[in-house]
C-alpha cells in the first residue's frame, strides 16, 4: 500500500515510490498544456572508500533521505525506493539547468554532514508529454549506474526526453485590405520557427471571424487584426475574446493607422498584447511575434 508521509515539519511531499508512476503521468499530461518542463533526479547515496559495499552500512540510505527531506522545497516531491536504495526527487517546474543548481547546493550541504559520504545523481528532464514512465525509469537507473565509474558526487544527464513537442499555433489575420492581409500571410508562412507550426486563416471582418468557430479550440491563438473592420470592428472582437473563459490563449496584436496615445492606451487597457501602428516595419513585427511565441515556453 502506497503511503504519503509527513515529516516532522509537517511536509507531505515525501511519497512512497509506488506513487511515482501516477504522479509522473499527471505531470506529463500537464506538460502538454502548461508547456512547463519537469525534472526527475535519481539519487543514490555512497560512501567514500567502501567501494560498492556501501550496502553494508544500513544507516547510509536513512541518513541520505533525512538529508533530502531537509533540503527539498514545498513544491518538490520526494519518492523513496528503499529496496533499490534510490531516492527520486521530482522538481515540477524546473528544467535541467535549475536541477543542476539544486544538486550543486545539496552537494555542498551534504559534504558538511560527513566527509566520507557522497551521492550520485542522474538528471532526467521531461519536456514532452510522450515520455513513458518505464523508459524514464530505465534511463534514469542506467545513468545512475554509469556514475559509479566516476568521481564522488558525479552527475549524469539523460537527454532523451528533453526534446520539446512541436506546438501548433492558430493564427488569424483579420484585415479588410487584401494586400496587407496577403503580406502578413506571406510573412508568417516564411517565418522560421523551430518549435511551432502555424495554422493560418484570414478574415475580412470581425463578424466573419467570430462566427467561424475557428477561435473556439484550445490552441494558443495569435490574432492580428486591424482596429477598423467592417461589421464588427477590432475593439469589439478584442472585448469578445477577452470575455471568453480561456482568454489567455489569445495573443492579440491590434493594428491601426492611429498613433495617438489615447488609442494605444485604450487598446492596452482592453488587454491587447501589442499595438502596431501602420505603417509598421515588417522585421520589427516579425521580431515581436517571435518574442511572444518564445515566451510561451
Amino acid at each position, binding site marked *: 500500500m502506497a503511503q504519503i508521509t509527513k515529516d516532522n515539519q509537517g511536509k507531505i511531499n515525501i511519497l512512497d515510490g509506488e506513487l511515482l508512476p501516477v504522479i509522473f503521468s499527471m505531470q506529463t499530461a500537464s506538460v502538454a498544456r502548461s508547456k512547463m518542463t519537469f525534472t526527475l533526479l535519481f539519487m543514490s547515496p555512497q560512501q567514500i572508500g567502501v567501494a560498492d559495499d556501501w550496502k553494508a552500512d544500513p544507516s547510509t540510505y536513512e541518513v541520505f533521505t533525512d538529508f533530502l527531506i531537509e533540503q527539498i522545497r514545498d513544491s518538490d516531491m520526494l519518492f523513496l525506493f528503499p529496496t533499490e536504495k534510490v531516492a527520486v526527487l521530482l522538481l515540477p517546474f524546473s528544467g535541467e539547468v535549475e536541477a543542476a543548481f539544486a544538486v550543486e547546493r545539496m552537494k555542498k550541504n551534504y559534504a558538511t554532514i560527513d566527509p566520507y559520504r557522497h551521492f550520485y545523481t542522474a538528471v532526467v528532464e521531461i519536456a514532452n508529454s510522450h515520455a513513458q514512465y518505464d523508459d524514464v525509469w530505465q534511463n534514469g537507473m542506467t545513468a545512475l549506474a554509469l556514475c559509479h565509474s566516476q568521481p564522488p558526487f558525479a552527475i549524469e544527464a539523460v537527454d532523451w526526453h528533453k526534446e520539446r513537442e512541436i506546438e501548433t499555433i492558430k493564427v488569424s489575420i483579420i484585415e479588410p*485590405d*487584401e*494586400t*496587407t492581409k*496577403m*503580406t502578413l500571410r*506571406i*510573412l508568417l508562412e516564411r517565418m522560421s520557427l523551430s518549435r511551432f507550426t502555424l495554422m493560418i486563416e484570414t478574415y475580412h471582418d470581425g463578424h466573419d471571424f467570430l462566427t467561424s468557430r475557428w477561435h473556439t479550440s484550445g490552441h494558443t491563438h495569435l490574432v492580428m487584426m486591424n482596429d477598423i473592420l467592417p461589421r464588427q470592428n477590432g475593439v469589439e472582437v478584442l472585448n469578445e475574446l477577452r470575455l471568453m473563459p480561456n482568454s489567455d490563449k489569445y495573443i492579440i496584436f491590434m*493594428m491601426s*493607422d492611429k498613433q495617438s496615445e489615447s488609442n494605444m492606451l485604450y487598446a492596452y*487597457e482592453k488587454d491587447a498584447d501589442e499595438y502596431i501602428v*501602420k*505603417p*509598421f*516595419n*515588417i*522585421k520589427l513585427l516579425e521580431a515581436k511575434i517571435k518574442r511572444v511565441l518564445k515566451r510561451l515556453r
Partner: protein
Amino acid sequence: MRGLIWTVAGISALLIIVLFILLGYLLIQRTIESRRNKRVKQYKAQFVEHWLLYLLEGVDPPEGGLPQKREAYVAIDDVFYHYCFSISDHLPRKRVRWFVENYMVDFYKKKLLSSRWDERLNALHRITDLQLQMFVDDVRSMLRREDKVYTEAEYVQMYVIMAKFDVYDSYAYLQNPQVSLNVFHYTTILNEAAPRIFNKVITHFNTSPLQLKLAIIDVIGLKKQVTYIDVLETNLQSDDEEIRIRSLKAIDQIGFVKEASIYAAFAQSDRWPERLMAARIFLHIPNDWVIDALFDLLRDPSWWVRKRAAETLSQKHGGTSLLQDVINQDTDPYAIDQARAILARQVETGT
C-alpha cells in the same frame, strides 16, 4: 389644339429618345468600367503574390506580370499603394521607386495631365505616398501653368509634394499660395514638410499669415517637437487668444515646460479654455504651487476645468489622497463632486 398636341407629343418623344441615348451611354460606360475592374481583379488575383514577393524579398516578377496594359498598371499601383500604407520598411519602398522609375513613369505622367481632376489628384497623392521624387519637375510645371486652374485639393497636394521633397521654392508657395489656404490645409502641408522647409517656416513665423501661424503651432504639438518649445512659450505672450490657446495645447502635447512660472497666470485667465489648458499643463510641472493652483481650479465655474483639474490632481504623486482631502475638507460642493467622480472612476477601472 391638335397642333399643340402634336408639338407636345413630338417634344416628349424627343425627350424620351434623348433619355434613352443617355441611358445607353451610361450603361455602356458602366459596362466598360466594370469590365476594366474585372480585368484589374483578374490581374491582381494572378500576380499579387509575385508583386508582394518582389517588394518583400526582391524576387523578380514573372515575365507575364510586367505591366503592358492599363489594368496591369492600375493593379500594380493599387498593390504598391496598399503595401506602402501598411509597411514602412526602407528596402521595399526603394523597390517601389525603382520599378516606377523603370516601368510606370508614363502611366503617372499621363494621369497628371489628365483632363479629369480626380485622376490628377490621385496621381498627386501617389507621388506623396510612394515618395516618387522623380515627378517633382512635373508638379512644378503644373504649378507654373498660367492657362490651367486646378482645384483647391490639387493645389494643396502639389504644395505638399514641394514641401516634402524640399524643393527650393516651396516656401514661397506657402507664403503666397495660388488659392486661399486654411489652417487644415497648412497643417496637411507642414505635416509632410522636410525639416529644412519647416525650419524656414518657423524662422519667418512673425511675418506669416495667421492661418499658417496656427498650423505651425499645431504641427509642433502633433510632432512633439520639443526643440521648438521656445517658439511656443514666446507665443503665450501673443495678443491673439487663438494663438495662446493653441500654443498651450501644443505644449501640453509635448509634455515639457521650460519656464514653469509663466503658466501660473493662465490659471487665473478670464477665458475658460486657457484655464483648462493650464490645468492640463500643470501635470508636467513638478512644483508645489501647482497643487494649490489645481485646488483653486477644482472650484472653477466651468465643469470642463474642474474635471481636468481633478484628473491632473489624481495623476500627481499621492493624487488619491489629495482628492480624498478635497472630499473631507473642501466646502465647495462642485469640487467635492468632481473629486468623488474621479476616485470612483479609479476604482471602476482598477487604476
